[in-house]
């Protein structure tokens, strides 16, 4: 079973308008690498030159912010759901 990755609207131009795509990997870093392979150009939108997730992008694994886990080394289970969400102007999402 593949990991489902939710793509925010501003990045869907790169995923051919798909809101959810499959991408595999044991960590967020690997998931992002595979995303880049399938949808070239997406990684530089999510990560800066040093490979760290950009400050105004939040990545959640099963609803948990990876900043409060192991960052891009956060483990991703095979059936995990990964969400990529722009931070916009604050606002805490309860879901």
């Amino acid at each position, binding site marked *: 079973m593949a990991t489902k990755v939710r793509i925010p609207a*501003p990045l869907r131009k790169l995923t051919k308008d798909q809101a959810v795509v499959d991408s595999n990997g044991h960590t967020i870093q690997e998931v992002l690498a595979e995303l880049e392979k399938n949808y070239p150009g997406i990684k530089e*939108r999510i990560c*800066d030159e040093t490979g760290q997730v*950009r*400050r*105004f*992008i939040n990545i959640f694994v099963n609803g948990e912010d990876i*900043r*409060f886990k192991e960052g891009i080394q956060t483990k991703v289970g095979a059936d995990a759901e990964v969400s990529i969400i*722009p*931070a*916009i*102007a*604050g*606002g*805490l*999402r*309860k879901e």
Partner: protein
Amino acid sequence: MKKIKALKCKECGQESPPIAKHVCEFCFGPLEVVYDYEWISSVISKEKIASRPHNLWRYWELLPVEGQQVLSLNEGFTPFWKSRNLGKFLGLKNLYIKNDAVNPTFSFKDRVVSVALTRSRELGFDVVACASTGNLAGAVAAYGAVGCFKTFVFIPADLEMGKVVGAGVYDPIIVGIKGNYDEVNRLCAEVADIFHWAFVNVNIRPYYAEGSKTLGFEVAEQLGWRAPDHVVVPVASGSLLTKIHKGMSEFHQLGLIPELHTKISAAQAQGCSPVVTAIKENSEIIKPVIPKTIAKSIAIGNPADGYYAVKTVEKTHGLGEWATDEEIIEGIRLLAKTEGVFTETAGGTTIAVLKKLKESGKIASDETVVAFITGNGFKTQESVQEHISKPYLIEPRLNEFRELYESLVKSKQVEEHNFLKNPAYQIK
């Protein structure tokens, strides 16, 4: 001649045209106005500023609008004075109070809204809106009414009555959201995506936020064209703090003040202190919190400019401190009794934090310190009404008053009621 050159991403530096937009399309970072400083420096001068009317538009060159037709209710250039009693009480020889609670709608938000609505009109909008903890709602409602905009204000449903009335009197459409400010803010981001309105603190935010710089300009001008040593600023989204610093920095760059060394310190309520927590923990990450404090005007659990506020405090060698709800109430009372200013909870937070920083030796007694009082106490009476003097009830007869007076004398309340004369309070 256009003085606004572009909007620029604070994170990746990409530039885009100066329209109604707040997020970088490339990396989602916040956008900031880029000015033509070369032109500004060629036309601005202390003499020119000083010759203009006493409102924030005296700094027109440094505000993000192109036209001279501005939407103003004479906001800004609010009272600023050397402390009469509070400094003595706290042991600060050069304490100044900036009282922004006496703006047209009684908070500093009139500054940002005057700028935001002027710019919104320039960009062709006829509907304005905001997400608000209360003060902004009143300001947007007032300026929206005077500027003939259709006006929508979104507020948390549990707001203090004074703030709901203070907005409602201008007849905007008020939407009460069953949730906290962060939820209101998120909803507004979604509404702003669909409805093409000027949301002052969403898609107009890059312009709106610039209005807060004028507090930095004014304090420098009112101090006699120099920067203070230390300022204490209440923090909600973090925008005000960063912009006060930006205002003083611009004055310095333009040669209007000789040097800049001001430490910028952040004050938050303990029940909602994501920025102060990050400062204390030396962390770049702002951990969102669910607010739990009486200081609703600064109860933002996920502050939009929190990161930049932390950076500004660090860069200027300032400090971060929080105050408990009890300390905030004490702060409100202390400012009232020493300086005659009735502030709301945000101002109480500033005073409580100022007191703590002095007591812990982190502010020296000879520093020139400015406390920013950003909102009016009459809007949040609920927060203090149980903690202040109440009337003694008597019949309209002289003997009743005599009896009351004698009992007050006996219980020493007549001598001790004056806080500053009460020997129990040692004036340092």
